[in-house]
């Protein structure tokens, strides 16, 4: 119900804006509705130390609005809600203790994340330059994120080359929600929504890209980011179970385990290349490759291919395949394999400074395959006259579904549906 009200408010805002504008503005306003569904299941949840259910469902509708103010300036806005339910998060309090939060046990099983951003673009056609400023916000139960960024783009006079450079800053505030049995202070109990310690994470991204038309049918794009993160990089409700030689036949709860611990800084460098080739009037090839390296010890390769096939002039089917492989982080070990020792008082402690059993940081291969369908007639699917001079044009319908098969057993799939109109 709230979402309906919100969508209505967005539409009213857009129409109000339209009325206030100069009638001579020729550029079309555009509204897009995107619906996404995601489901996964696996058996290596980091919440339970690298074993246990990873079942997760997420429904994520999204609205994007683009409003050209005049031929030089335009505004845009994106608003979305992610509603998810997570079986693994319900295990934050799997070992119920006096410190376990009644609030969390129910709330963490399902959560809502609201997010949105606004952007403003100013172009200078005489110099083939444009600049885009973006501000964003997102909020869920345990994380609030603020972001801001700027992108500068310049095309060559003949539009055959395009260069862009940009930067983004994200500032996240995390509630420290620890597993129930590992909460010791009153501020860790979490029986009230604001009764948590907090920590922050700052992410700075510098992006650069260069696009080049090579022939009448081939163009490529080089892109790279430098991403630097500082602050909380572990997830406070991820457990790590150690190789507890003092407690071989104990109940799991009694085995020595701690909260995941990772360094407070991380540097990521991905480099990508995209090449699109118009093979013939009914077939296009879209290729992408990325190499990635970071100081957690992860190196990865990504190759993807899409082959849009034009069944008719306006109806396109595109099969999708993506191959991804990564090495493990130097801090990763599976359940029960991180080493521990006893101090002089026979109290167990971790030997390593940093440790995780999060399989997202393990070595694996991930295959993604799927299909997309797009129907986009030149003059739209349907038109509704709203006045003598204006009409709403429903531009396209696009449907896409993909499946993931990760070598550690994680299976997932997504469904996306996109439609939109201009006026």
């Amino acid at each position, binding site marked *: 119900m709230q979402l309906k009200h919100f969508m209505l408010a967005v539409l009213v805002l857009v129409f109000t804006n339209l009325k206030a504008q100069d009638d001579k503005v020729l550029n079309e306003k555009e509204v897009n509705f995107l619906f996404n569904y995601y489901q996964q299941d696996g058996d290596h949840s980091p919440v339970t130390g690298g074993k246990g259910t990873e079942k997760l469902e997420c429904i994520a509708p999204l609205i994007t609005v683009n409003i050209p103010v005049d031929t030089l300036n335009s505004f845009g806005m994106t608003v979305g809600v992610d509603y998810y339910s997570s079986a*693994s998060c319900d295990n934050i309090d799997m070992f119920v203790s006096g410190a376990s939060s009644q609030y969390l046990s129910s709330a963490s099983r399902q959560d809502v994340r609201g997010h949105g951003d606004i952007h403003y673009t100013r172009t200078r056609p005489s110099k083939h330059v444009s600049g885009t400023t973006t501000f964003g916000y997102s909020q869920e139960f345990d*994380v609030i994120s603020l972001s801001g960024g700027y992108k500068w783009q310049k095309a060559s006079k003949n539009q055959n080359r395009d260069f862009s450079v940009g930067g983004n800053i994200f500032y996240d505030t995390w509630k420290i929600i620890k597993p129930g049995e590992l909460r010791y202070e009153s501020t860790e109990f979490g029986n009230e929504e604001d009764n948590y310690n907090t920590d922050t994470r700052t992410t700075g991204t510098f992006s650069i890209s260069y696009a080049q*038309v090579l022939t009448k049918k081939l163009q490529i794009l080089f892109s790279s980011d430098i991403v630097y993160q500082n602050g909380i990089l572990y997830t406070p409700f991820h457990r790590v179970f150690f190789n507890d030689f003092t407690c071989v036949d104990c109940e799991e709860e009694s085995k020595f385990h701690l909260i995941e611990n990772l360094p407070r800084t991380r540097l990521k460098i991905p480099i990508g290349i995209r090449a699109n080739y*118009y093979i013939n009037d009914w077939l296009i090839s879209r290729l992408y490759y990325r190499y990635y390296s970071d100081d957690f010890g*992860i190196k990865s390769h990504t190759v993807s291919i899409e082959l849009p096939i034009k069944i008719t002039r306006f109806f396109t089917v595109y099969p999708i395949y993506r191959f991804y492989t990564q090495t493990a982080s130097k801090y990763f070990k599976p359940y029960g394999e991180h080493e521990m020792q006893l101090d002089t008082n026979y109290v167990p402690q971790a030997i390593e400074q940093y440790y995780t059993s999060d399989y997202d940081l393990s070595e694996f291969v991930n295959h993604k395959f799927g299909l997309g369908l797009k129907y986009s007639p030149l003059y739209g699917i349907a038109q509704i006259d709203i006045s003598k001079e204006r009409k709403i044009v429903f531009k396209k319908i696009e449907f896409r579904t993909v499946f993931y098969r990760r070598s550690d057993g994680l299976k997932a799939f997504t469904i*996306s549906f996109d439609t939109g109109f201009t006026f």
Partner: protein
Amino acid sequence: MIKKILFILTVSTLLASCATVQPYQKMYLNDEDMKLSSHGTEAFETGIEGYREGSAGANGGKTGGGCGCN
């Protein structure tokens, strides 16, 4: 092997960049599916991949901020 492929792609790009394609010759390049960006419907997948894989970036997607991960 990968270094060789990257080297060949870079060199061929530099050599070919001298060729000029005129605006009236861009009917193929202007096709919707020839855009050098990912599909709008792909953005959600890019976010998911950022959570479920150890790497992210260099694809025009989001490279930080928030969680939504679990």
